[in-house]
C-alpha cells in the first residue's frame, strides 16, 4: 500500500481516494432516494383522506430542537475532521463523541415526535399523507440510527488503532454521511414542516 504523505491522511492511499469518490457517488444515489420521497410527499401532501393534515399535527418546538441538534452535530463532526487533519487525536475523539451524543439526542426527540403523531391519530395506516410523512421522516431517522452505530464502531477503531490511513478514511467518509443527513434534514425542515405550517 503506497502512502502519499503530501496529502491528508484520509487521502493518503489510492484506495482511500477511491473510497471517498465511491462514497460521493453513493451520496448521489441518496440524493435521488430522498428526491423520490419528496416527490411522493408533495404529491400526497393534500391527500389526507380521513386523517389530519400537516398543519394540524406539526409542532414547531420539537422540530426546531431537532434542527438545532442536527446542525450543531454537523458543525462538530466538521471540527472533528479538522482536528484529525492537524493530528489532534484526543480533540478529534471529543468532537466525534459530541456528534454522536447530539445525534442520539436528535433521535430521542424524533421518537418523541413519532409518539406524538401516534397519539393524535396520525399513523402509517391513517392516510396516504400520514403514511408518506412517516415514511420520509422514518427513512431519514433510520439513516441517522444507522449512522450512530457506524460512528460508534469507527470511534472504537480510532480509540484502538489511533489515526491510520484506514481509520482516517473511515472517519472522513462518516463525516460526509453525517453532513449529508444534515442537508436532507434541512430540506425536510423547510419543505415538510415549515411549508406545512406556513
Amino acid at each position: 500500500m503506497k502512502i502519499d504523505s503530501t496529502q491528508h491522511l484520509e487521502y493518503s492511499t489510492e484506495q482511500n481516494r477511491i473510497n471517498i469518490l465511491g462514497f460521493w457517488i453513493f451520496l448521489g444515489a441518496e440524493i435521488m432516494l430522498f428526491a423520490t420521497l419528496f416527490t411522493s410527499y408533495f404529491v400526497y401532501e393534500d391527500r389526507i383522506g380521513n386523517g389530519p393534515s400537516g398543519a394540524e399535527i406539526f409542532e414547531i418546538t420539537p422540530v426546531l430542537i431537532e434542527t438545532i441538534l442536527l446542525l450543531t452535530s454537523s458543525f462538530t463532526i466538521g471540527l472533528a475532521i479538522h482536528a484529525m487533519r492537524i493530528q489532534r487525536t484526543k480533540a478529534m475523539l471529543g468532537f466525534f463523541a459530541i456528534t454522536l451524543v447530539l445525534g442520539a439526542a436528535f433521535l430521542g426527540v424524533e421518537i418523541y415526535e413519532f409518539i406524538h403523531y401516534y397519539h393524535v391519530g396520525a399513523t402509517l395506516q391513517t392516510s396516504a399523507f400520514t403514511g408518506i410523512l412517516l415514511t420520509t421522516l422514518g427513512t431519514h431517522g433510520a439513516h441517522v440510527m444507522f449512522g450512530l452505530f457506524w460512528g460508534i464502531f469507527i470511534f472504537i477503531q480510532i480509540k484502538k488503532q489511533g489515526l491510520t490511513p484506514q481509520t482516517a478514511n473511515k472517519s472522513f467518509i462518516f463525516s460526509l454521511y453525517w453532513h449529508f443527513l444534515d442537508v436532507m434534514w434541512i430540506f425536510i425542515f423547510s419543505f415538510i414542516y415549515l411549508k406545512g405550517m406556513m
Partner: protein
Amino acid sequence: MKLKWTFLTIIITIATVLTGCEPLLVLDPKGPQAATTANVIWISIITMAIVVVVVLVMLTNMLFKYRASKQPDDYEPPHIEGNKYVEGIIVGIPILIVAFLSVVSIISTYQVEATPEGYEDQEPLVIYASSSNWKWHFSYPEQDIETVNYLFIPTNQAVEFRLYSHGTITSFWIPQLAGQKYAMADMVNTLHLAAEVPGDYMGRNANFNGEGFAENTFNVTAMPQTEFDQWVDDIHATADPLTEETFNELLEPGHLGQMTFTGTHLEFAPAPEGENGGHHHGSPDDSEEETHDHDDEHDSDSEETEHENH
C-alpha cells in the same frame, strides 16, 4: 445477401397486409377522432419508412462495397476521425424530422383531446362509462338509462365519455372511433368522440386487469339519432329500474352478458368527480355535489377546450 432479401420480403409483406383488402381496425376510422389518429399514424409510417430505407440502402452499400472478400489482401482501411459536416448532417436531418413529427404530435394531441372537429357547437351527449371486474357499465344520465357491456350512440353527434372504474385501472378503447383513455377509481377522465358511420364496433378494456381481462369487451352500435331516440323510449317502456342492490350484485367479479336498466347508478353511487376533476379527492363529501350539476361542469369543460383550440 440473404439478410437483405429477408428484410425486403418482410417489409413487402407488411406493406401488402397494411394496404390489403381487409383494413386494420385502427386504420379504418369511422369518426373524426380516429380519423385524426389514423392520419397521424400514416404520416409517421411514411416518414419513418424513409428513415428505414435510407439506413437499409447505406447498410447494403457498405456491406457490398467494403466486404473483405472484395478487397485486396493487403488493403489497410484508413484511420478516419469524425467529420464536422458529416456529423452536422446526421444530427441536423434527424432534428428536422423530429421537429416535424413534434408539431404533428402537438396539433393532433390537442385535437383528440377536444370536442371532435365540426361538432363544437353541439351539446355533446354525456355517457358515464365505468368498469368493474370484468364489465363495463354505461350510464346515460340525460336519458336516465343504464346498459351493461353494450353501448348505443347516435351518429353525427359529439359524445363525451366520463370514464372511471370501480376497482382496477382499465382503459376504454373503441379503436375505430377514438384512442384509449384510462378509467380509474379516484378520478374521472373525459374522452371525446363522434361516430359518422352507422354500424357495430368493437370496444374493449385494453389495460390488463386480471383474470377476466381477455373477455372484458363491449359492443358499440352507432345509429341515426331517430333510431337512438326510439331505442331510449323502448328501454323506458320495457326495462326494469336499476336498484342499489342489483347494482352491487353487478359489481361482483365475473362476466355478465348485455343488460339494460332504467335509471342510472350515479344516483346512489356517484362518480368520483371532485372540485378539481377529482384529483384532490381527499374527503368523501366533495364527490357528492358534482354529479347533480354535471351539466354546468361540462359547459365549463367545453369552454376550456375551445380556449385550447384557438
